[in-house]
């Protein structure tokens, strides 16, 4: 399997889908400039720069999707999505339902987020949970190059609006990606490491922190299972529950702010549906409820790191 970066995986996925399906088009601020090779191959009408107007870029995707196109839009950094909430939440998420099923919106919205570039809170805000909460959307946030590629291709083929979040800390991380038409279905978590004492449930870059923590834990004889959610909506309830039913313990980890984050949903799910298997409280590790700071020193302190995860898991296993 070839090893490529996340950025390359994303580019490949878009190129392959543009090639496969005439209805796919790709636009956003600087998309045509930054991906000249796509313009060259697919033409300036399918790969477009736009004016600065995030709301309208999203609205245009919704309108085009209603007409049978399959737009992919790049809204750059996740906080800029705040300009597009009306179009994404009230139009893309609701107009199919409101119309009694007359229309559908096959569209994908890309956005970068996360710590790593010290850009501060207006470029780095993990607000994926807002879209998970909003009805009618699907949400993915992969952590490996293979999943970035496979989930993006699946998202483009899905007949519904999909929010596709890219943890910018992973953008240049290399990973093996299967050749050919590699598809990862939406709604399926991945067990990144098998274990029996505790389930570490996460997504995005903190999956790697969980894997590192699992390594540390194994050294002290604790066997941790690491679940990468990948899809946040639909959420793979079965994968979460069957892991916790096996281990009896869960630590839920993400970089997004703690309160009302996806971790709250995962924890609530476990507390409701795997309660009888639980051998201890369901722990959550997430960033505190503050905007993401810029300074490198603070940015690192913002994210749950491997030692904290290992410490929490080991505390849980030891019943302390």
């Amino acid at each position, binding site marked *: 399997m070839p090893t490529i970066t996340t950025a390359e995986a994303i580019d490949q996925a878009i190129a392959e889908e543009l090639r496969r399906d005439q209805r796919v088009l790709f636009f956003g601020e600087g998309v045509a400039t930054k991906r000249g090779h796509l313009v060259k191959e697919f033409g300036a*009408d399918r790969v477009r720069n736009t004016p600065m*107007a995030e*709301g*309208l870029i999203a609205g245009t995707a919704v*309108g085009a999707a*209603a*007409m049978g196109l399959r737009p992919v839009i790049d809204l750059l950094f996740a906080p800029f999505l705040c300009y597009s909430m009306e179009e994404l939440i009230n139009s893309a998420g609701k107009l199919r339902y409101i119309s*009694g099923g*007359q229309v559908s919106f096959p569209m994908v919205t890309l956005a970068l987020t996360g710590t790593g570039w010290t850009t501060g809170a207006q470029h780095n805000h993990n607000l994926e949970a807002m879209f998970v909460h909003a009805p009618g959307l699907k949400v993915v946030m992969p952590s490996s190059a293979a999943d970035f590629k496979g989930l993006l291709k699946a998202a483009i083929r899905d007949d*519904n609006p999909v929010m596709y979040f890219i943890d910018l800390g992973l953008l240049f991380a290399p990973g093996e990606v299967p050749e050919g038409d590699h598809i990862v279905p939406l709604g399926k978590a991945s067990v990144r490491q098998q274990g029996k004492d505790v389930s570490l449930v996460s997504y995005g870059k903190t999956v790697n922190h969980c894997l590192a923590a699992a390594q540390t834990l194994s050294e002290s004889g604790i066997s941790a299972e690491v679940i990468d959610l990948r899809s946040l909506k639909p959420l793979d309830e079965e994968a979460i529950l069957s892991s916790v039913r096996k281990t009896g313990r869960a630590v839920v980890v993400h970089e997004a702010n703690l309160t009302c984050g996806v971790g709250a949903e995962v924890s609530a799910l476990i507390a409701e549906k795997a309660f009888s298997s639980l051998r201890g409280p369901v722990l959550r590790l997430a960033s505190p409820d503050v905007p993401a700071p810029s300074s490198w020193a603070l940015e690192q302190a913002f994210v749950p790191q491997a030692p904290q995860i290992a410490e929490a898991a080991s505390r849980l296993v030891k019943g302390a």
Partner: protein
Amino acid sequence: MDNTQPQAALETMMLIRAYEEHNSAQAATHQAPGTCTAVGQEAAAVGVVRALRPEDRILTNHRSAGHLLARGADPKRMLAEVLGRASGYCKGKSGNLHIAVKELGVVLTSTIVGAELSLAPGVALGLQQQKLPGIVACFFGDGAASEGTFHESLNLAAVWRLPVLYICENNQWQAFVARKETMLIDKISTRAAAYGMEGHTVDGNDVEAVHRAAIEAVSYVRERRQPYLLETYTYRTRGHYEPDDQAYVDAAELKSWRDRDPIEIEKKRLRAAGQLDDARLAEIEQRISGVIAEAVEFATNSPFPDASELTTDLYA
């Protein structure tokens, strides 16, 4: 109803009026949910919609009954939707505020003011990319013309040369706020220049003037494949939402506009031209009462959606 007859536009206006007055009366006695009417604005809707072709798409909003009826929507299924019945155009999930009728090209309807503007370029892009015939007629109000999405929409349509006919129904009201409180300019069509677009304002209470202007605007968009801003200058003579006592409306202003009722203007013109007389009018009125009665009968006898419908139509 034969669409080519000179009386057809009048009859459509009268149907819209009757339909909306029925809903208003029902809302006044709380027998039906409140609706937004466009009483006084019928010419603006009918004059434009009659200039469109079947392959054209229409985007409308909360004040949509005129556009829908002029387009040939079935009053039965519209009323059923207003009453939340399963037989409504949207299975009761919309209610009156966002009725879409895809089979008529009324493809997306949103009640978020400005959303029609945010969606129109994409619909037009769908036509453009797939080399489909037709243009997009996007109806919005003077209030929507202050939303940021107006700016973003017209600019993109201009730059991408999208076939969108923007129709601003300037009815001088934005719910409970007078338009004059919200902008220093009087004619919204002057904003077209900011986008390198052409625009024009027409007397929105004269259905024939609107129709002529619309025919020109539509062919501009259809032939040049580029957007155009047409403003129909009119007045909302009922309240924002039924019931509404209009206590906030200047009585003299309201009267001056009621005196220019688009239906009366057109009746007078047709009578003067010998194309309308009392008998003919009575015939039209009778036909319309029949249509309304039938719609009421159909809608009130339709069942509510089953609770199982709550979770359908979410994902495709």
